[in-house]
């Protein structure tokens, strides 16, 4: 089946089986390697992308369910001001260890910050606890989210 997709503002096409998860269309068909495969069962969050701005698990989202919704991945999140700030904070605070979960963490953090521009620790816990980090960079992730929130507050 041919699917017309809107990804990071570009119109792309993929010819794949309807049950192919969005994750594999991104990674293998379209060669966007930033979105990661961790568990394949919606358990880890490494594959988080935005569908019309909402975070989803691309490993369990069949391409046939995407429709005309616009997809944003880690490769495109920097086009967004919040996304760019999050990327910046991630670098300044040296958030990654291995870095493998971090695309998913950044995508989750951006949606959290859009929902709560000044999140409390509890809101961060609630918003980020489905994104696992095997290296356990959680302290830095939290600090980086606060840093973005503080920067936004100070304008």
């Amino acid at each position: 089946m041919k699917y017309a997709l809107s990804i990071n503002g570009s119109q792309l096409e993929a010819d794949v089986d309807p049950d192919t998860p969005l994750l594999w269309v991104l990674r293998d068909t379209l060669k966007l390697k930033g979105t990661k495969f961790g568990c394949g069962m919606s358990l880890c969050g490494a594959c988080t992308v935005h569908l019309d701005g909402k975070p989803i698990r691309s490993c369990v989202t069949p391409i046939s369910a995407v429709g005309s919704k616009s997809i944003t991945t880690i490769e495109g999140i920097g086009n967004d001001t919040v996304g760019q700030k999050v990327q910046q904070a991630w670098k300044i605070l040296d958030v990654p260890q291995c870095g493998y979960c971090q695309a998913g963490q950044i995508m989750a953090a951006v949606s959290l910050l859009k929902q709560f521009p000044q999140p409390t620790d509890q809101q961060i816990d609630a918003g980020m606890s489905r994104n696992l980090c095997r290296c356990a960079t959680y302290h830095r992730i939290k600090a980086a989210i606060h840093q973005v929130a503080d920067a936004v507050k100070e304008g």
Partner: protein
Amino acid sequence: MTTTLNPARRHFLKASAAIGGGLFLGLYLPNIAYAAEAGQMAVLSAHVRITADGVIEIMSVAPEIGQGIKTSLPMVICEELDADWAQVSVLQAPVNSDAFGRQSAGGSRSTPAHFDEHRRIGAAARQMLLQAAAEQWQVPLASLTTQAGIVHHGASGRQLSYARLANQAARQQSPDLASITLKNPADFSLIGQFTSGVDNDALVHGRPLFGIDVELPSMLHAVIHKCPVFGGRVKTVDLASINALPGIRHAFVIDTSSVDSGVAIVADSWWQAEKARRQLKVQWDEGKAKQQNSADFDKQAQQLWRKAPSQITQQVGNVDKAFADAAKVIEAEYAYPFIAHGQLEPINCTAHWQAGHLTLWAPTQNPASGQRQAASAIGIDVNDVTVNVTRMGGGFGRRLFNDYMAEAAIIAKQVGVPVKLLWNRQDDFQHDYYRPGGYHKFKAGIDAQGQLQAFSDHFVSFGNNGRTLLAAGMHAAEFPTGFVPNLQFGSSLIEAQIPTGWLRAPTSNAMGFVFQSMLDEVAHAAGQDPLAFQLALLRRSDAKPQNGFSPQRMAAVLERVAELSDWGKPVPEFHGKGIACYYSHAGYFAEVVQASVNQMGAVKVEKIWVVGDVGQFIVNPSGAMHQVQGAVLEGLSQALYQQVLIDGGAQVSNYHQHKILAMNAVPEVEVEFLATDNPTTGLGEPALPPVIPALCNALFAATGKRVRSLPIKAEMFA
């Protein structure tokens, strides 16, 4: 600080002017003939490259698994070179042990193996740039200084960048590595500074870095379906129906002694291969591992404990007499489970077999060994295998085993085009090299003053044909060896067919739990504060410390962590603090955990204090903090959640059954390093072992109930 070069690596400096000019500085072994005086060889084996067009490149010699070595070791060269870190690019070194020495990531060994040598290489490069400037300006070398990649002549105000001096520097006499002058550590401007990882920009933009991201023209994708029972083999399989499925290019049985038996499916896309696999009809010959299971292991341990240990591994004094004489004898049985690595990037390897040569793109912690394993799996010479090391989505010891490189080699040879093998998460959990489980039956005897006089352990571990499984042994010098006048360690083995291996802080991650919990029990039985008890033990006048273990360094971290955590101050009801310490991988760590237990028995870890001593320098405080916090939280995951039950094979398929601590369960972790005048050692591992017993000891303090088996379960407290 000892500043001797590793005598096993009697290297000389090798400076070359390579293609395009510039200074390429590396090491060479005097007994290896250099194929080329300059050019490609120099390019590939140089630690530092400075070219006339302003490029400063430093090689990262060790594989990057998230331990931060790709940032920290190049920092060491840059420090002595006195280059501007912002202008340095870091490249992953090719596999070449003649030029780069140890190139594996494990055992917290990369920093101690390379730290001193890297300083000297950086200093040597700087020295040659200085010589070049002195020659050009005709001034004494001593009148020159460097800063941020520029040589200054103070008297005349002249200055030249390293780039401008690079060609001339390459023609200078290379200095003697052993006698070269190093910076006074007080003048360090990069070592000791918070430094962000060199790959961070690529990471936050999702640029390809990892093994799983490798993409080659016309590449195919492979999966391997294996028997869920360890060692099981393919008996029959219907390949014809698989071959007929969309996108499938190859399906074949792999059944050689070099890798696990299984069915390889190769397709245009990974998803097609994975989907085809679900339709695979295969009959297995499950073999003898079919019979084994965890409940039976538990039973066997009890039976073995009723007998004498089959082997005595440590014997000091006379424990039998000492137990008979003791004022009080404390006995306890401990157990811990098999656990998996669960590194987030699933096992993968990309391979291309072409004209008798195999090229691998491998996320491996041990590339040289993987190269040998891949070569032997397809019967070629090791020189016919090239390994490109990729960044890794975690290692934790899993990628010290290179089974997947051999598998990728076999598939690549069969298909003849580039192919990426990728396991799914279930494969990863079911075909790991597990941290072995184990059982300890302890006995301790104290005298009327509460002093430890006798200690014994009957360790029941796992073996195959009477040989202890990998990483399933125990050190004869395990503390309190050397600190008790009468001590005996014995061991017995349960037969098992389980692949085992190293997991971050191997053996120590389990021994820390059982020994430091048991000593806490003894302290309580003696009516002593656990901190005071452990300090008194470390300071015994009749102590005979083993293997370079320093009781002074351990006592110092214990005292400091007690101070930081307000040890001894009362805590609210159902809350408790526990303390533990452990020496591993040359690092000394003491930790205090504060935890609480609610009426449902749910454990909450509130705060952790960590004090470590890894010698004189912390190269990158950012990376160091990451390693400590990461290790500590990993220890909590192990203590609170993780176990792999065995029933033929591993009864775990994904993260819901082998959980990782999530953001909402993460406590504050306060970390302090004691800088001591000892060689700088590694940090990947030593912070992990103490956290588990510190938590269990805290739970005892909170509830009066002793955790003697992991993982911790709410039923223990409800």
